């Protein structure tokens, strides 16, 4: 017994070092699985407020670019207004179905909430975006995040007033995507190389693809309404498989994110429950 105490006494520093290493490593490997870690919620509040101040300062330097992208978005939305479509033919009348736009929200599928970006990284292998909107403001895990140009990522962690978004530039990101023109679906991933390019795999070779084609989120991605992910930059043909791998340019400029929209799918719960229940039956 005495020897044990002597041993502990002698190697106290080393044992302490080992203990700290074990704590650190267990935090690291648990976090990657569950995206949760000890005190993460409390820490998010502190780091979030620091990042908020910094982004408030940076905000002024990016005002011009933010304005540009908002103007572009407005232009796109104005083009969708029904008043733009006037039909000279008097025999056919456009009947505007008001039900999907009802204010009661019974039929609404997606709810959009704007959020200010308070931190954003592009330089590591696993990049996150921190937004200033959290549980108190209705943000939950697994909601989609979209900028005015295209998809940004998926919410992975929330605190009271902040949320972290796993951006498209994250090695674990997998978002179901489809070609806008022909509808073939595949999975968008990032290989960690350059923040300017994404890869879209599993597109069958029967698809007719051209450089510059638009890629949108597919109907299977329940976090997102159909929104632009990027455009095809290059087509890589792998002779050993029946699939193309496409190199995409993301529509979102991750270097100048200022405002994003958090999209909530109000029917996601229902869909998930149904799918779960179906699995149980089988």
């Amino acid at each position: 017994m005495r020897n044990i105490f002597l041993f502990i006494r002698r190697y106290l520093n080393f044992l302490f070092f080992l203990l700290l290493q074990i704590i650190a490593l267990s935090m690291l490997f648990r976090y990657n699985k569950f995206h949760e870690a000890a005190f993460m919620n409390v820490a998010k509040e502190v780091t979030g407020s620091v990042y908020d101040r910094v982004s408030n300062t940076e905000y002024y330097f990016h005002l011009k670019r933010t304005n540009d992208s908002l103007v572009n978005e407005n232009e796109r939305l104005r083009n969708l207004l029904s008043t733009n479509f006037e039909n000279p033919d008097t025999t056919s009348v456009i009947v505007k179905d008001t039900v999907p736009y009802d204010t009661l929200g019974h039929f609404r599928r997606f709810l959009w909430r704007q959020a200010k970006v308070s931190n954003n990284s592009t330089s590591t292998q696993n990049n996150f975006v921190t937004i200033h909107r959290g549980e108190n403001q209705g943000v939950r895990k697994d909601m989609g995040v979209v900028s005015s140009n295209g998809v940004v990522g998926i919410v992975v962690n929330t605190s009271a007033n902040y949320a972290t978004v796993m951006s498209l530039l994250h090695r674990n990101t997998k978002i179901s995507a489809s070609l806008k023109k022909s509808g073939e679906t595949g999975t968008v991933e990032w290989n960690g190389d350059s923040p300017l390019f994404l890869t879209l795999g599993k597109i069958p070779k029967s698809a007719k693809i051209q450089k510059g084609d638009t890629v949108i989120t597919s109907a299977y991605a329940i976090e997102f309404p159909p929104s632009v992910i990027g455009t095809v930059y290059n087509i890589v043909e792998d002779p050993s498989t029946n699939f193309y791998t496409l190199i995409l340019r993301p529509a979102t400029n991750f270097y100048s994110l200022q405002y994003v929209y958090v999209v909530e799918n109000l029917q996601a719960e229902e869909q998930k429950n149904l799918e779960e229940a179906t699995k149980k039956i089988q």
Partner: protein
Amino acid sequence: MSNFAKNIIRFVFFILLQALLLHRIPFLHKTITPYLYYLYILWLPFSLPRGWLTFVGFIFGLTLDYFLDTPGLHAAACTLIAYVRPFLINLLIPQQGTEQSYASPSIRSMGWAPYFTLVLILTLLHHAYLVFLEWLQIGSFLYFLIKVVASTGISLLLVLLTEMLFVRKERFRTNKV
């Protein structure tokens, strides 16, 4: 200013520098991440007991981790170099009694060559461990090697610049003080 207050300010400064500036530099992507923050651990005073040094290293790394959303990654690397530092200093220190006559490791207190050997070894150790942990989850071996070497090069350059720009006034302490 007391040593304690100075080190607290340095703590905050190095964390913010790393999280807000160095980690946002674009286009050095993939193989190079400029790290400077661990210099804080090298600058901690000689008089800190070994156990406390390890603990401060852990807390320091963990704080950065919370800023960068990687809990445990930098904490593990910082704990390692904080634990190894006293052994290296014992090996490298030129003469007996430097620990008593100077407050912390620096060019003045240790001399150019021993100090930069210390910086080089700890930088390599820190980067190798950090990238190794990253590599366990992703990447190839070549990527691992290139990243360690490239990041070490950039970090050494930054340390050199910092040491030349911010000369720490290390007074020779006599018994009178």
